């Protein structure tokens, strides 16, 4: 409840900013609404962003439940995406029935590995995962840009992107979800995102492994006393978080683009932090908050065309303000405030 209030307050503050530069807040709200729900295509685009944000939000949340901060989702998804694109270009003869499971394994597997590195360093060398994942974001960007421009470059394109993957990996004309949304980039991975969120929910709340993960997150030392190897648990949780971020690669390579494009990610990894924060790391809540942030992302792109002064970067302003106001609402103790006010 508090997070919804925080979200609304954040939007309200952003609209004040709109008012200040002389645009109409009501018009902005109308554009935001229309661009998210106006047509099937618009909704499809919003759902496409939401799919990616659900994956990164889950990634952040799982790490958080294990007491870790994964700000490396951005790096993990880039690393997974470039290598999944490479797999898709290399195994060009595979039929769809084999290609898609392979792409699934590649995107989550490479994401897992890239997440495992900070987990390993945290568990056995005591390195702080925040700094390591942050540095690894830049390393992934560098590696991906090298591979894209020097090794896997598309010779027929002026854009910084790899060659397309083979049709077994990417054939949008057979994607019923995409058809339904009139060609919007949303695709079958939307249903995977929903399924994974449910699975993560059951994993965390109903399984022994999930219980161990949460125990290690709540108090690593006392978890160790009760026989849980918290170091190993945290390490694997980080890998797990990386695998979840890797799903974004599955969406991009096999669902929407069919190739790796430099800069394809609209900061999904970082916005995922806001998504998880607003849902208080609840896997099912993340689906809802991913949808709200997806709508903002889509809406801001439309504001770029429809207003004079607002550019697509406005999404970032709203995201930043919402992060601040949502957490402020958590930390402000309203009961205390009301009591204070009454006693005066």
């Amino acid at each position, binding site marked *: 409840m508090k997070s919804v209030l925080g979200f609304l307050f954040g939007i309200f503050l952003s609209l004040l900013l709109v008012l200040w530069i002389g645009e109409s807040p009501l018009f902005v709200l109308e554009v935001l609404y229309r661009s998210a729900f106006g047509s099937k295509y618009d909704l499809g685009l919003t759902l496409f962003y939401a799919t990616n944000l659900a994956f990164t939000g889950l990634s952040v949340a799982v790490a958080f439940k294990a007491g870790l901060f994964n700000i490396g989702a951005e790096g993990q998804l880039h690393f997974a995406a470039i290598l999944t694109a490479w797999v898709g270009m290399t195994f060009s003869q595979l039929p769809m029935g084999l290609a898609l499971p392979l792409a699934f394994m590649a995107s989550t597997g490479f994401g897992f590995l890239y997440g495992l590195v900070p987990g390993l360093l945290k568990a056995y060398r*005591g390195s702080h995962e925040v700094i390591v994942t942050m*540095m690894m974001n*830049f390393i992934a960007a560098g590696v991906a840009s090298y591979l894209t421009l020097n090794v896997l470059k598309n010779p027929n394109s002026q854009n910084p992107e790899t060659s397309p993957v083979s049709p077994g990996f990417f054939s949008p004309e057979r994607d019923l979800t995409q058809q339904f949304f009139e060609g919007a980039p949303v695709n079958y991975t939307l249903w995977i995102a929903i399924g994974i969120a449910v699975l993560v929910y059951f994993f965390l709340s109903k399984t022994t492994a999930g219980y161990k993960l949460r125990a290690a997150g709540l108090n690593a030392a006392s978890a160790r006393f009760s026989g849980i190897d918290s170091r190993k648990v945290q390490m694997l949780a980080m890998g797990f978080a990386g695998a979840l971020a890797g799903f974004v690669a599955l969406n991009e390579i096999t669902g929407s683009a069919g190739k790796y494009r430099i800069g394809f990610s609209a900061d999904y990894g970082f916005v995922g932090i806001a998504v998880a924060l607003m849902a208080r790391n609840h896997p099912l809540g993340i689906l809802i908050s991913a949808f709200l942030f997806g709508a903002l992302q889509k809406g801001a792109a439309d504001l770029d065309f429809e207003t004079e002064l607002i550019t697509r970067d406005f999404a970032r302003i709203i995201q*930043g303000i919402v992060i601040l106001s949502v*957490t402020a609402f958590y930390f402000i103790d309203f009961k205390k405030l009301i009591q204070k006010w009454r006693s005066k």
Partner: protein
Amino acid sequence: MTGLPWLDELISLVLATLRSATPLIFAALGGFFSERSGTVQISLEGQMLMGALTGAVIALKTGNPYLGFICGGLAGVFVTLVFAVFSLKLRMDQIVLGTGLNILAMGLAPFVTKVFFDSTGSTPSLPAESRFTSEPMFLLFALIPLLLWWFAKTKSSLYVQFAGENPTILSSLGKSVLKIRLYSLMTCGLLAGFGGASLSLFLASAYSPNMTAGRGFIALAALIFGKWKPGPTIAACLFFAFIDSLQVQLQGSGLPVQFIQILPYLVTVVALAGFFGRSRAPAAIGKPLEESK
């Protein structure tokens, strides 16, 4: 100029290193204040960005680079004041906060240029008389010995260190940890803002989109690589700036440019893994203050 080509090349390499080290050192020293006083600081990038933007805007409007530079520093202070309200008063998680402020700064910069200059992300370029030729560098040269002396010899530097290592002792001495962390944060913002302003007023001649390009994170990397000590941190900045300047020299040598770009991050990860001796963060870093009466 000396008649010896290799010497010319060396001198130009050294000068290029010093130039590109200037914003890094400013920001890393800012991060030093914040982290040593117990606040995890990942929003250096946002502070630099605001400093660079404000510096360029004020220098453009007034024609005075000094005023621009100072306002750039104040813009950094403003960011850290917001940081302080949320982290010290509301005891919000500092990493979430840092990420949020970075995202906000990245959104605000193009917004401001659009509103003021009707351009998508950059300011018009500055005329020669309203930008610097070398002044920020000399300011930094003057500042470094002063800071090293302050760190080694003064009581107030001990207070800052205790705020980050063992705040309870400090409060039992009757000092306010909150105040010390607040002042350290403001110093951090000032220095990081200066770093940003020296980017737009000294290294370049305008504000351009996302001009910090990860320098705030490199500065943080230098701070960690330098084990949270001022001397080694400055040395790490110089090292990273040297790598950056080599980039130009190494073009066409077959070594991929991306490799040079990721080198600072790579060595930081290796350093964090403890392969260059242990680097230990301040003990109380990131922990919010206990509720005080």
